[in-house]
């Protein structure tokens, strides 16, 4: 099943013409409405008229997450505030989060790409979709919600967590599809076994899992535990949220909705555009977004693109599962985390220095995060209650800033390795290819 055959199966020649035309419009919009982009284009001597087709994309400068932070909160918006109908934000230290805005048309476009995605998983108006992604500033919940409603499916907006309730509704409402992070799906599967719920009573057919990296082994395990077919969905809030790309039933990579998001692969060091099939950093230009168009946004995700036509009939390019990042961002239980965020929390506290180590692991299919912090000699108290108090203070400050629970462990001073160059801040024990 294909939701929008016209756009998903378009001849490549016709598609690049459409992209070129939309790119032209987009450059004009940001040139005249976003001072940041205008300055950057002027610095390079580029005027809107210079961009005529998709071939001219490479002339444009890149945009980075730092540019988004520098323009916090609304500096990159290309429309007046009264046209913005929704705001989402990523977690981050105060003033450092990434804010994204949507116009009414943006929300409609987002629902469209999610509708295409869910259709790839065989979801129709006859399905009951349990949306177990978090609802809120995170784009997962509301993103999938609107797409599922657009299809006409019955949506259960249960949001994340509350495992017992999730299981109860799977059983009582007969949900046929579920959307959540893959680690939560595996956790639900195990809870099902523990609660001794008979899997044959469930009606689950499809799972839409994303927001964090996962392996083929996890896919097999989830499919076995929940008795469904597991699909990978990709997205990032800066670009739109979930629904940037999605696996079809062939499961040979995720089709990128190129009529809205133009992908490129670059060498993260030299920024040179790489040929198809080469591993590199994924870059997106959003050509239809109104509130916050992005020009050559560096996702930092490392992957490959394949242009050969898929057996499903779609002509849209396919991206492989991301194999890593070209920066130090971690994804823990679907939450993005930079080690520098931990550092700034420790710097803000008078009793701690930024000597820390993040230890990431996966226990019972859920990511765990331990943050080791060195005890500073001058703040060392010989009373256990003082040290425990310090540990809890660090823990709660981290939780409120990162939006993520992390276990804090106090360690002896000087035990965390110092290096002259880039310090080793992260030990990731999760086994991901």
């Amino acid at each position, binding site marked *: 099943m294909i939701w929008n055959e016209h756009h998903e199966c378009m001849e490549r020649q016709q598609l690049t013409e459409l992209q070129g035309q939309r790119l032209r419009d987009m450059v004009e919009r940001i040139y005249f409405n976003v001072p940041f982009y205008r300055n950057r284009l002027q610095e390079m001597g580029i005027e809107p008229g210079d961009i005529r087709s998709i071939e001219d994309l490479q002339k444009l400068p890149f945009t980075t997450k730092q540019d988004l932070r520098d323009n916090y909160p609304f500096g990159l918006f290309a429309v007046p505030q009264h046209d913005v109908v929704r705001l989402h934000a990523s977690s981050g230290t105060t003033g450092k989060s990434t804010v994204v805005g949507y116009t009414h048309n943006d929300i409609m476009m987002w629902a469209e790409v999610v509708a295409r995605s869910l259709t790839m998983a065989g979801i129709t108006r006859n399905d009951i979709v349990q949306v177990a992604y978090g609802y809120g500033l995170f784009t997962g919940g509301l993103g999938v919600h609107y797409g599922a409603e657009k299809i006409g499916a019955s949506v259960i907006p249960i949001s994340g967590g509350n495992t017992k309730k999730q299981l109860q509704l799977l059983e009582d409402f007969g949900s046929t599809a579920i959307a959540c992070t893959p680690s939560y799906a595996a956790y639900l599967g195990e809870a099902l076994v523990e609660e001794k719920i008979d899997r044959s009573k469930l009606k689950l057919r499809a799972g839409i899992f994303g927001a964090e990296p996962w392996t083929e082994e996890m896919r097999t395990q989830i499919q076995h535990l929940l008795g469904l077919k597991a699909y990978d969905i990709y997205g990032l809030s800066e670009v739109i949220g979930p629904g940037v790309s999605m696996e079809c039933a062939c499961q040979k990579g995720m089709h990128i909705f190129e009529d809205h998001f133009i992908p490129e692969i670059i060498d993260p060091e030299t920024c040179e555009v790489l040929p198809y099939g080469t591993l590199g950093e994924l870059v997106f230009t959003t050509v239809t977004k109104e509130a916050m168009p992005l020009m050559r946004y560096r996702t930092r995700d490392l992957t490959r693109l394949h242009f050969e036509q898929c057996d499903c009939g779609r002509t849209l390019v396919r991206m492989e599962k991301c194999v890593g990042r070209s920066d130090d961002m971690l994804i823990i239980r679907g939450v993005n985390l930079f080690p520098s965020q931990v550092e700034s929390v420790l710097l803000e506290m008078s009793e701690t220095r930024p000597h820390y180590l993040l230890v990431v692991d996966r226990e019972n299919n859920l990511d765990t995060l331990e943050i080791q912090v060195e*005890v500073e000699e001058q703040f060392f108290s010989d009373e*256990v209650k003082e040290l425990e108090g310090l540990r809890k203070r660090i823990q709660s400050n981290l939780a409120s800033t990162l939006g993520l629970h992390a276990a804090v462990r*106090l360690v*002896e*001073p000087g*035990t965390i390795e110092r290096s002259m160059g880039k310090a080793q801040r992260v030990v990731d024990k999760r086994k991901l290819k």
Partner: protein
Amino acid sequence: MIIRQLSVFLENRAGRLTELTGILADNGINISAFSIADTTDFGVLRVITSNPELAEKVLKEQGFAVKITDVIGIIMHNKPGALHHALQILTDNGISIEYMYAFTSAEGQATAVIRTDTPKKAIEVLQLHEMELLKA
């Protein structure tokens, strides 16, 4: 009368305490009493040594988080009611105890090491009641 006790932060890691006792032994420092307060992840070692200044110096050189804490030591007869008597004096004078540990010696004596916020006042009232105190 104030005893300079050494407090050391220790991770719960196999062999860590042995490293510490090795350093003290190599420097000819005698341990007369010690206790460990432990949690899941770490412990705090409290130790009374023959030379607290030297012990602090050598442990710091080896990267330990060390701190000198003032405590007092009450010497009692090793017999029923002796500890109760000493603690009653402190309680009656409104002195509260953060932590304590005790050890006995061969001569029928027992010593209680006590950490309080007001060590000077504690010494005063204990002496008033003719209690024998451990000398620094």
